[in-house]
């Protein structure tokens, strides 16, 4: 079967607020950049399928998918929407090309978080209406519940979680696509308000606006469009039970199984050794650590220590979230997965500017759909076919 490559990327954002652009214009700008980056393709004739990723409630539309063709050059073309994270769209594009029926597929995901005036009510509407929602309260208390048990079972410390924030926000300073880069100290994180014990204010990512468009192509088309293809070596995804009461609270099994699926296709036996760096979903600081363990980058309960020792810093042995992560870039809602993929692509092309990691061949992108979900996805990418 043919190999699949990412041949073009376009990103607008991420910024705390985007007043001057509508969501359609945001998508148009990112699409123009991506098509240009993919050797100047014309979406009106060079793209076989378009995949957009959006959740109606986050868009403020019923049937949002009807509103996406024009600004991507996809009117009267072959388009559909995946109601989920952008990485599920990437996985779909990968599969479409693998069938041999399609050569060029475009994936889009965006966040216009600043347009959502009652975001937390939407998150709250994701809770079980019978058993959980009637209890009321801010839905992020679920992250507090999870973090507390994760620390308890793994002996990970609050300082180790706070270190994730220090690292990621610092990395974000060097990323022009990041909204919330900052030089914060461990003390500043630890002394920020405890909102959902033991989860602190600075450990919670803040939403941001942005859009990412990617062009994927089959081997034969990819090599015509770019001399820097980034090959998709494996993708995986998984969802655990929605029942908060019966799911696993410390091991992020959805991520473990998604990773195993991607590693199998990519032929990864030892991720820490076979992969050079990772972009991992860090909507909350502790999730980066929990996800590192689920991704088999280290043993259960070891991620905090590795972080504290600096192994996951930009200059460390295995950089995690060189982009600044969601804590530094801003939480791009359904674009989160593509934020992760974007950084891996830029690093593998050697285009990450002052945050470029030396001598990289393979990178890992991971996403999670946030509170209260237990859905994750993983992609393994490489600049070597």
């Amino acid at each position, binding site marked *: 079967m043919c190999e699949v490559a990412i041949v073009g990327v376009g990103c607008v954002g991420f910024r705390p*607020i985007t*007043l*001057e*652009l509508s969501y359609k214009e945001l998508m148009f700008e990112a699409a123009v950049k991506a098509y240009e980056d993919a050797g100047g393709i014309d979406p009106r004739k060079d793209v076989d399928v378009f995949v957009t990723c959006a959740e109606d*409630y986050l868009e*403020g539309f019923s049937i949002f998918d009807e509103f996406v063709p024009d600004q991507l050059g996809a009117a009267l073309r072959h388009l559909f929407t995946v109601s989920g994270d952008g990485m599920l769209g990437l996985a779909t594009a990968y599969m479409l090309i693998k069938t041999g029926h399609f050569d060029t597929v475009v994936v889009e995901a965006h966040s216009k978080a*600043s347009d959502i*005036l009652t975001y*937390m*009510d939407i998150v*709250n509407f994701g809770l079980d*209406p*019978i*058993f*959980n929602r*009637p*209890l*009321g*309260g*801010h*839905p992020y*208390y679920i992250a*507090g*519940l*999870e*973090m*507390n*048990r994760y620390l*308890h079972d793994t002996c990970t410390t609050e300082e180790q979680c706070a270190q994730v924030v220090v690292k990621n926000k610092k990395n974000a300073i060097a990323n022009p696509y990041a909204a919330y880069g900052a030089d914060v100290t461990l003390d500043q994180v630890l002394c920020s*308000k*405890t*909102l*959902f*014990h*033991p*989860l602190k204010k600075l450990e919670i990512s803040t939403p941001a606006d942005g859009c990412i468009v990617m062009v994927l192509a089959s081997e034969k088309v990819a090599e015509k469009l770019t001399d820097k293809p980034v090959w998709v070596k494996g993708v995986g995804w998984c969802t655990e*039970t929605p*029942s*908060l*009461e*019966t799911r696993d*609270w410390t091991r992020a099994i959805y991520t473990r199984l998604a990773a195993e699926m991607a590693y199998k296709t990519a032929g990864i036996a030892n991720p820490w050794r076979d992969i050079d760096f990772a972009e991992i979903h860090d909507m909350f600081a502790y999730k980066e650590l929990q996800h590192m363990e689920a991704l088999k980058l280290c043993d259960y309960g070891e991620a905090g220590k590795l972080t504290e020792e600096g192994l996951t810093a930009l200059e460390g042995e295995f950089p995690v979230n060189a982009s600044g992560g969601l804590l530094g870039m801003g939480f791009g809602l359904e674009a989160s997965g593509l934020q992760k993929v974007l950084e891996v692509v830029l690093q593998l092309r050697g285009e990450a500017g002052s945050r470029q990691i030396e001598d990289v061949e393979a990178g890992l992108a991971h996403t999670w759909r946030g509170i209260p979900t237990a859905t994750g996805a993983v992609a393994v990418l490489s600049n070597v076919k």
Partner: protein
Amino acid sequence: MSLEKITNPFDARHWIGHMEAEYRYTLGIAGERFFKEIKENERIMGVKCPKCEVVFVPPRLYCEKCFAKLEEWVDVGKRGEVYTYTIATIDIDGKRLEKPQIYALIKFDGACGGLIHRIGETEKVYIGMKVEAVFKPPSERKASINDIAYFKPAE
């Protein structure tokens, strides 16, 4: 596009939309039984999988592990243990709560799962703490998860 810097988000031309969406969620067979037992008998019930020998709380008609149909109801008792807890200091609008709210996942002996609920009558809480359900007076019960007012420390 405006050439002047906009400093107040509401100065950008916009239209406010409001999504009117109300739903009625039926409890289903398992939910009906579960909340009837709470409302009428102050009993917390689980349902047992004959194949996995696991008792699920909250109850459901199908096993998430083996997909079997579940029919054997089991009383798991009013007492449980705090599996994890958190203390919320803000409400859903981000406003500071006058009194922080403790939430916990309470697990019951021999059961898989448990109930997420509030902890009351104490400011002290820890993982492993034994707690007991406090039911609202019968006249105030509505066959809802809030028929349990909260869980309190059990001796």
